[in-house]
């Protein structure tokens, strides 16, 4: 991966009548990066991907690929290739013909064309299946053919539109790992569209989280998860306990907030933060709260009562009511110490690390 920008999205808006599918989005994707566009249905992520591919045109703004402006360049002349959500495997062609579809236009020598097709099929571990008809493929195989067909073109950017959503859970997890390895070995910039936060967290170098046509946050998976810029991002990426906080002080890069439960906390000053009427939201992920057993104590702890318990096999979710807190806290605890045996109604103490408390915009 280098720092050279491969894709630049500059102030791009896409409107359909009064509806803005994408609203003034700006973004830079680096060369060799595995980049994900993450968000719920209708957030504009597919629209953005299709504009990069050339299937849609920005109403305003510009898209550059490898430094070149893409306006007016149709999809068939862009250095991008796409893995479609439906895979779009040509049903009247076999695997080889599908993979070789784009090469036909390059008028390569027969042997060279065959070599490249075989190489691409080997890359996706489909060697030997070249003669299979499109109708005889399993879901996972279709996905691999779509991947090989795009990779064989040696694009500068590979675009993936929810490529794993049609697969079952187990295959999906396996393909996540394989896709990541594949990207690292070919070194091509991958742009993935997904609504599955785990997929984005597991595969990406960086993630852009999108809501309602706007890009809310662009960061590494860890940052996006641990330091969400607002409640919406925090919520979309997993469970989060929210506490309303009053801002009592500000320092270089930090703010000091006062909450009814955790007391005075010094927290990293959130980006995109405009302290309005002196309040903010303080959040902590359920797994960052730890149950204190028996006589164990911690420097930072709260105590309360278990009001509900949900068993999930390897973990247990506890809902804990704590005096002074406006809402009960969710706690995720692994089951190796017997969290699944804590009865509802039992008193409980929870430890937390103040660094795990994140301040964010409402």
């Amino acid at each position, binding site marked *: 991966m280098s720092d050279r920008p491969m894709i630049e999205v500059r102030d791009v808006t896409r409107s359909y009548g009064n509806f803005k599918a994408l609203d003034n989005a700006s973004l830079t994707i680096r060369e060799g990066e595995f980049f994900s566009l993450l968000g719920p249905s209708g957030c504009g992520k597919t629209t953005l991907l299709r504009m990069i*591919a*050339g*299937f849609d045109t920005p109403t305003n703004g510009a898209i550059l690929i490898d430094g070149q402006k893409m306006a007016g360049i*149709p*999809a*068939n*002349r862009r250095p*991008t*290739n*796409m893995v*479609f*959500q*439906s895979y*779009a495997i*040509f*049903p*009247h062609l076999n695997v080889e013909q599908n993979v070789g*579809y*784009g090469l036909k*236009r*390059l008028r390569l020598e027969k042997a060279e064309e065959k070599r490249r097709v075989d190489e691409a099929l080997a890359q996706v571990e489909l060697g030997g299946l070249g003669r299979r008809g499109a*109708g005889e493929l399993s879901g996972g195989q279709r996905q691999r053919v779509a991947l090989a*067909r*795009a990779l064989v*073109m040696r694009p500068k950017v590979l675009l993936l539109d929810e490529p794993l959503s049609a697969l079952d859970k187990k295959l999906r997890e396996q393909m996540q790992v394989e896709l990541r390895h594949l990207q690292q070995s070919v070194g091509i910039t991958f742009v993935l569209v997904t609504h599955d936060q785990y997929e984005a967290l597991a595969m990406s170098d960086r993630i852009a989280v999108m809501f309602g046509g706007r890009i809310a946050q662009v960061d590494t998976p860890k940052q996006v998860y641990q330091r969400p810029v607002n409640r919406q991002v925090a919520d979309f990426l997993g469970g989060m306990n929210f506490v309303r906080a009053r801002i009592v002080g500000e320092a270089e890069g930090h703010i000091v907030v006062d909450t009814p439960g955790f007391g005075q906390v010094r927290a990293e000053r959130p980006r995109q933060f405009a302290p309005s009427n002196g309040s903010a939201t303080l959040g902590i992920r359920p797994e960052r709260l730890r149950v204190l057993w028996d006589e164990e104590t911690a420097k930072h702890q709260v105590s309360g009562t278990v009001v509900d318990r949900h068993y999930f096999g390897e973990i247990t979710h506890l809902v804990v009511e704590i005096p002074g807190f406006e809402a009960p806290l969710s706690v995720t605890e692994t089951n190796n110490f017997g969290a699944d045996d804590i009865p509802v109604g039992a008193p409980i103490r929870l430890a937390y690390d103040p660094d795990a408390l994140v301040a964010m915009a409402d």
Partner: protein
Amino acid sequence: MNAVLRRAAINWLPAYAALYILFLYGPVLLLPLFSVNDSATPTLPFAGFTWKWYEQLWGNREMINAAWNSVRVGLAAAILSTVLGICGARAVTRYRFAGKRAMSGLIMAPLVLPEIIVAISLLLVLLAFGMSLSLVTVTLGHVLICLPYSMVVLMSGFEGFDRSLEEASADLGETAFGTFRRVTLPMVAPAILASLLVSFTISFDEFIVAFFLSGTDPTLPIYIWGQLRFASRLPAVLALGTIMLIGSFLLVTIAELLRRRAVARTKTDGGLFV
């Protein structure tokens, strides 16, 4: 009680369906049967087997002329209605636009209009335009009658067509024309062929519109209509009818097989006109 009822229902239905098919086919199958009967009238019992009615057809210039007219009209109507059908079906299955329902409703209307209404209204307008009646006017009318069927066949072929296939082709560097040639055409070709065959069959067999719109050149059904006045020519008409039945059957069977192939390619399902 429920089990008894259900068993009765299950036993009753297949038997009824078989009877129904007998009702559908029985009368039609009488034509081939009596076309080889060695008797001037279609009476029971059979008088013996003969090919002579078919042999009579062979030298009948009038009949051959009419058949040739029907072939020409059928080909022209099939091509025109398929070309127009491709435009209409593609527009309806792929695009959203204001007035789509009303427009496709008008195109499909001949399906539910009495043919005589279509025929006389066309007659009035064509004469008002100063066109003299000929095989051309018959063709114009037949296209109108065939269009709804072409539309249905083509729409079933286009319906499941995944738009991303064309996008994938463009994405892989193919031009718009190349995409049409390498992806779109091979996938919808069976549906287009099916539409050609179905429209040809309909036009070839169509009587009322031809009856009103033809000039001095008769089509085959008009020729048959004329022959029906003479009882003595009935056996020959039966022989001719048998040939037409077999022809229609073959064309429609091929059309259905092709259409299924088109549907299988675009991965939706249904029968002809379902």
